[in-house]
């Protein structure tokens, strides 16, 4: 039987502590009722964030740009290590078995990159091939998955590792603007690691064969999601029209990818969608005409962790695999969205 590039195991980890949404608002000193409403109406219940320095009233102290950079460096590496250990254990492999690593992050800039730190700390082989994908945002998990699976297809006996590590709280700024409130109420910290390799059989805990990817960028909305530098720190900006821009465009890449494989939306048995936010998920549901059940893991991950950026879809994918309902032959469709404005799609078959 021909071997197929499949996901062999996903590991997840979250740094810091899990806080209720209302606790985070309190720690960030939110007093304005409008801003408090943004925190309360986000459909997010809890999030892991790395708050380490508090004043005598329990409020988070103002962090310098150096503090935030150090926070990213510490937690992006530490949390990724935990996720990798978890993923390798599920896949039944060790660091010595990994031939290729793609590391994805947008919450801090490291040089040498995250992959170099992980190789040093965890003892991966010195000839491990690697790539670091930095600054592509929430969609970048699928952008990282492409080279990993391409590598595995080219070298059927080898194994690849995708790591997404985001410390979104290293990008928090404190001010009273609505824009900052939207960002501070949405994003959480978390890392994922996914091992890929060639296995001919679908077994419990193993994911779908990766068939193809489709990319789509909407250049007219290049500024809709972006980092601004305020002279001291990077601030993340989210345009309020993003859910509708994504909704109005989502069908194009989805149908294009399906058409190449002779499939329709009705042929997809399992959906894994990035937990971008309540309005984004609603917009995708109604524009693709898929149900709340189809995006149950996306909604649950958003509720429990907030938007985890590039690795969020792997949290959902892990839940789908743990459900153990996918049958041989079922079709899987993965969608991530992010700055650009970008939609990335992946088609798989269990």
């Amino acid at each position, binding site marked *: 039987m021909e071997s197929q590039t499949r996901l062999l195991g996903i590991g997840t980890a979250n740094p810091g502590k899990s806080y209720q949404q209302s606790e985070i608002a309190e720690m960030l000193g939110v007093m304005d009722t409008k801003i408090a409403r943004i925190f309360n109406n986000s459909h997010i219940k809890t999030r892991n964030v790395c708050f380490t320095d508090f004043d005598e009233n329990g409020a988070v102290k103002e962090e310098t740009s150096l503090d935030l950079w150090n926070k990213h460096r510490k937690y992006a590496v530490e949390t990724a290590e935990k996720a990798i250990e978890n993923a390798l254990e599920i896949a039944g492999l060790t660091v010595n078995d990994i031939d290729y690593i793609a590391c994805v992050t947008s919450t801090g800039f490291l040089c040498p990159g995250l992959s170099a730190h992980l190789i040093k700390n965890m003892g991966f082989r010195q000839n491990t091939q690697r790539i670091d994908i930095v600054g592509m945002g929430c969609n970048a998990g699928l952008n990282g998955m492409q080279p990993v699976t391409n590598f595995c297809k080219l070298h059927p006996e080898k194994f690849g590792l995708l790591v997404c590590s985001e410390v979104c709280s290293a990008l928090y700024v404190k001010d009273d603007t609505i824009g900052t409130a939207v960002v501070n109420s949405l994003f959480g910290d978390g890392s994922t690691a996914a091992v890929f390799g060639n296995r001919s059989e679908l077994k419990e805990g193993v994911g779908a064969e990766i068939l193809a990817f489709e990319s789509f960028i909407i250049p007219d909305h290049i500024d809709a999601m972006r980092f601004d530098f305020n002279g001291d720190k990077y601030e993340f900006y989210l345009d309020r029209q993003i859910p509708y821009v994504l909704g*109005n465009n989502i069908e194009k890449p989805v149908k294009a990818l399906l058409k190449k494989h002779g499939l329709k939306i009705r042929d997809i048995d399992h959906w894994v969608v990035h937990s971008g936010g309540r309005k984004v998920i609603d917009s995708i549901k109604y524009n693709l005409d898929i149900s709340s059940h189809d995006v149950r893991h996306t909604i649950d991950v958003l509720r429990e962790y907030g938007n985890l950026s590039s690795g969020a879809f792997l949290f959902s994918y892990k839940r789908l695999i743990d459900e153990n309902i996918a049958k041989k032959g079922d079709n899987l469709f993965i969608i991530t969205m992010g700055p650009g404005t970008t939609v990335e799609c992946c088609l798989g078959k269990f």
Partner: protein
Amino acid sequence: MINVNINVETQLLTIKEETNLTIVELAETQESIDRDAFLSELRIVADYLEDESISNVVVFKGLCLEMTGDTEVPSSDFFRRWEKVLNQLEKLPKVLIAVLDGTCENFLMQLALCCDYRVATENTTFISSEIKVGYLPGISTLYLTKYVGMGLARRTILAGIPLKADKAYAEGLIDEMCTKEQLNEKVYEFIKLVTPKSIKAFQLGARLLRESYANSYETALGHYLAAQNKCIDK
């Protein structure tokens, strides 16, 4: 009105089509129909309606037949495939109308309930006997509560007590009731009455209605805004 030849042959269901109307009919010669064969053909018809048919209105006729095997519990795979095809039909950008005359039972009742409207004769009765046999009726039967309320739905679904046309009409489950002789004329009148100007608006509105009662105000508002944006997007 012309007979449509779809690529795969169907024995139980015929499709006739004119400019803006498709009629899907269970063959009159049948006394009872095989459940598995019916599901297979319904999937073919649903694919045709989604992929090729350009009409905005679909009428299902002949749904008051006995289905063989209704006293046996289907496999879990059958339920999965059945719900999938009903979901596909529900989501079509078309107005679905069930035309009923007689006893509409179990799986055919589910199909009638997944339609947007029902035009029926006074002799029509709905029967859901699945729970008496030992399994659960499909999701569209469970929609019955939204139409007729918990009291009546409880008697129909849990106890299998027939739900007669007059009661169903009074509660809004049947949209147009008439005599057998009037049925054909009433169907065409009803089609004129309910055919929407924008099928996209109809489709999204139908989805929001199906999801009503299920969500908090905040969730429903989010769904509404997402649907409205799709509706007015050029």
